């Protein structure tokens, strides 16, 4: 096949052939709903993918994009709804079935096999066989080279180990694999997140190639410039619902941002009358070799400071540096006017800064230990005397903080693993409050918990600042940022993009700042 003809520069991109109404979709999802215990991930969403076109799936974190991808690749089963391929109603009961229908996904981090060769990766599971049923290595290598050639990726050695390739070339291998199984639907889930500018350009050429081959492409990205560059259509998700779709050439950036953020108020945030005092924590020139650069901000007494940004903007990394978990190469942190240089988590806990991490399961609760032992874990030095625990004090510490958070548990000796997600989150927060901190950093404090627990966490945050604590809240949920923060710091690509007073601040400004779109 002639591929050179399709590899025209961006400006000469032909009008996508399938844009007329006559083209029928390759894949249609309609009325798809999916719930997990306590969380409604998708509600009655629909999506159509057309051959030879790129559809961008746009939405905030938690809008349900990943869940949809998992349904399309057969990993999750929808609770209701229909999947149609070429107009035929189909079910995708397993990843294997999705593969059989020619649906393939290329993820941010490629799920290929590092220790196998390029050719093996391309043909794993459908390698050509010899008469005797063994793998026909010669044909496999030859076919691999052919596929790579077709994609103009002949520079990749079919015999190289995958781990010796860069990420961009791994993407090429993933696409080659899609080509080799004659994939007709290609899903790209934030493929550019880890790529350099040059590699992104190469990826775009590749997507153009897939279009020219008549593949239906779903492109998921947070970056508006990329979406407008490569996609023909868009579908916007918000809070698990489909809120808009159409042709990108008919929709402006601001219109799409409005679709992403406009929402019904389904959650009442606590009314506060902030009494904001003198600066407690000030950070200046904080830099890390790879994650963030020249971060400066001030946190005042009794204040909730929101940190907003896209995933990967470096918010959690900054917080971990302040909490002594990762070390920074440069910069100054001062607490109550005293310069501090935390070298470990124990140092910052001692100084009065605690970090409540994002991943509750991995970094927060210790499943297998009872509730009271979880709560006292960072405070063991205070509840013990020369290394010997004083159980009565431990219990009363745990009781006082879990009661204030309205924890629902039959006993404090109960294993935290038996609690619901919301109650586990309360245990984590109780654990950090028990250290009597001055500054508490909450990283995505309500991610993945139900509405009721969210309200409890928000109410408690309001109570904390009313008592004179200062809170940093890292959140990707706009309503939470707007509903809880006194001021908002927006980070983009490892830098502070802007700091706003939360007076008349609107969601669109935040999204535009985070994505780097001029107003």
């Amino acid at each position, binding site marked *: 096949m002639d591929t050179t003809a399709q590899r025209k520069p961006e400006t000469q991109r032909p009008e996508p052939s399938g844009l007329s109404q006559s083209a029928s979709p390759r894949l249609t999802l309609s009325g798809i709903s999916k719930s997990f215990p306590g969380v409604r991930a998708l509600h009655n969403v629909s999506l159509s993918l057309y051959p030879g076109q790129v559809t961008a799936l746009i939405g905030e974190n938690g809008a349900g994009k990943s869940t949809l991808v998992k349904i399309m690749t057969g990993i999750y089963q929808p609770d209701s709804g229909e999947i149609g391929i070429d107009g035929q109603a189909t079910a995708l009961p397993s990843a294997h079935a999705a593969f059989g229908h020619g649906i393939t996904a290329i993820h941010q981090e490629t799920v290929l096999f590092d220790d196998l060769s390029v050719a093996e990766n391309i043909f794993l599971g459908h390698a050509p066989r010899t008469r005797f049923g063994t793998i026909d290595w010669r044909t496999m290598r030859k076919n691999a080279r052919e596929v790579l050639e077709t994609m103009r990726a002949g520079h990749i050695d079919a015999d190289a180990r995958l781990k010796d390739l860069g990420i961009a070339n791994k993407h090429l291998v993933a696409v080659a694999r899609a080509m080799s199984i004659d994939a007709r639907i290609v899903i790209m889930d934030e493929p550019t997140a880890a790529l350099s500018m040059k590699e992104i350009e190469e990826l775009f050429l590749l997507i153009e190639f897939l279009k020219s081959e008549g593949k239906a492409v779903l492109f998921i990205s947070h970056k508006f410039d990329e979406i407008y560059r490569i996609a023909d259509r868009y579908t916007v998700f918000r809070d698990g619902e489909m809120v808009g779709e159409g042709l990108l050439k008919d929709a402006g950036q601001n219109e799409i941002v409005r679709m992403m953020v406009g929402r019904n108020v389904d959650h009442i945030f606590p009314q506060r009358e902030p009494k904001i005092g003198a600066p407690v924590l000030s950070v200046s020139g904080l830099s890390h070799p790879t994650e963030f650069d020249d971060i400066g901000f001030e946190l005042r007494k009794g204040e909730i400071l929101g940190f907003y940004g896209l995933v990967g903007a470096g918010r959690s990394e900054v917080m971990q540096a302040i909490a002594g978990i990762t070390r920074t190469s440069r910069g100054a942190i001062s607490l109550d006017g005293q310069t501090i240089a935390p070298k470990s988590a*124990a140092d910052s806990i001692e100084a009065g800064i605690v970090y409540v991490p994002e991943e509750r399961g991995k970094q927060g609760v210790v499943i297998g230990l*009872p509730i009271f032992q979880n709560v006292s874990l960072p405070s063991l030095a205070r509840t013990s005397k020369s290394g010997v625990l004083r159980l009565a004090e431990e219990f009363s510490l745990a009781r006082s903080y879990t009661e204030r958070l309205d924890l629902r548990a039959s006993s404090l000796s109960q294993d935290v693993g038996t609690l619901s997600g919301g109650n586990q989150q309360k245990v984590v927060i109780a654990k950090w409050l028990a250290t009597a901190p001055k500054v508490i950093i909450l990283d995505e404090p309500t991610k993945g918990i139900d509405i009721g627990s969210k309200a409890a966490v928000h109410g408690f945050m309001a109570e904390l600042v009313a008592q004179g604590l200062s809170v940093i809240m890292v959140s990707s949920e706009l309503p939470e940022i707007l509903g809880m923060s006194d001021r908002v710091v927006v980070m983009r690509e490892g830098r502070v993009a802007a700091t706003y007073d939360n007076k008349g601040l609107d969601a669109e400004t935040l999204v535009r700042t985070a994505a780097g779109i001029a107003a």
Partner: protein
Amino acid sequence: MKSFLKYREIWLLAGIVVLIGLISTRFPGFADPANLRQVFNDTSILMILALGQMVVILTRSIDLSMASNLCFTGMVVAMLNAAHPAIPIPVLIVIALLVGLVLGAINGFLVWRLNIPSIVVTLGTLTIYRGATFVVSGGAWVNADQMSPDFINFQRVAFLGLPVLSWIALLVIALFFLVMTRTQIGRSIYAIGVNPTASVYAGIDVGRTKFIVFCISGMIGGLAGYLWISRYVIASVEVANGYELNIIAACVIGGISIAGGIGSVGGAVLGALFLGIISNALPVINISPFWQMAISGSAIILAVVLNARGERRQGRIILRKAEAA
């Protein structure tokens, strides 16, 4: 989890009672208190070693060098005793603890500072410590006639109806129970075993804690070195060769999870007793030693299956949570 653990230990205890009952049908004297005291005394060294290994396993590590440490330390105290019979036994015990501590600290240092996996470190020191025994002894044995009577008899003296060896085991069990349930270090050991990442965030120094557990297992290895040599009254390079596997087996049978974080003092003690009873009783009732090995092996697999079943239900909850998040 605590109540569930107790549940598991009760099952192990029940298994031991049934085992004793079965043996009694073939060998009526077995369940006599006097005989059971004897079995306990015979198992004392294994129990002590299993407790030392337990703290290491709880932190997701393993100490394969314990038996070599035992052999080296045993040789050192035996040679000291042969050369200077006047050194009092309590002093020799302190020396054994210190020598063991040094060997354990070497393991701990390599694991902590150089960040080498413990299985690799102790696989290396397993050979090194046994080789070092050859170097200090020149390959020679220390025999019963070279040891002082005190050296040999100290652990056999009866005190309130039990030999001193049994009392030492009871003391070590009590000490470990207190450390694991009532001290900061005990709590830290469980926490880093269950969730090392969360422990780091909570301000626990994971590396230092691992160093400490290797120091503990080293001291236990040293103590067991003296007890072993004075019990079997011979010190050689071959002492306790391969015994590290019995120690680990006792831990596994006792419900200590190789994945770390789960296990108790009671479990380790019962696991050791189970092995002790099998090795004591089966020869008496004329069951071949090969059956004995098969029974120990089956007990290990059974224990792991039961533990895995216990943990699986938990795993599902975590998975659901992870999906929902």
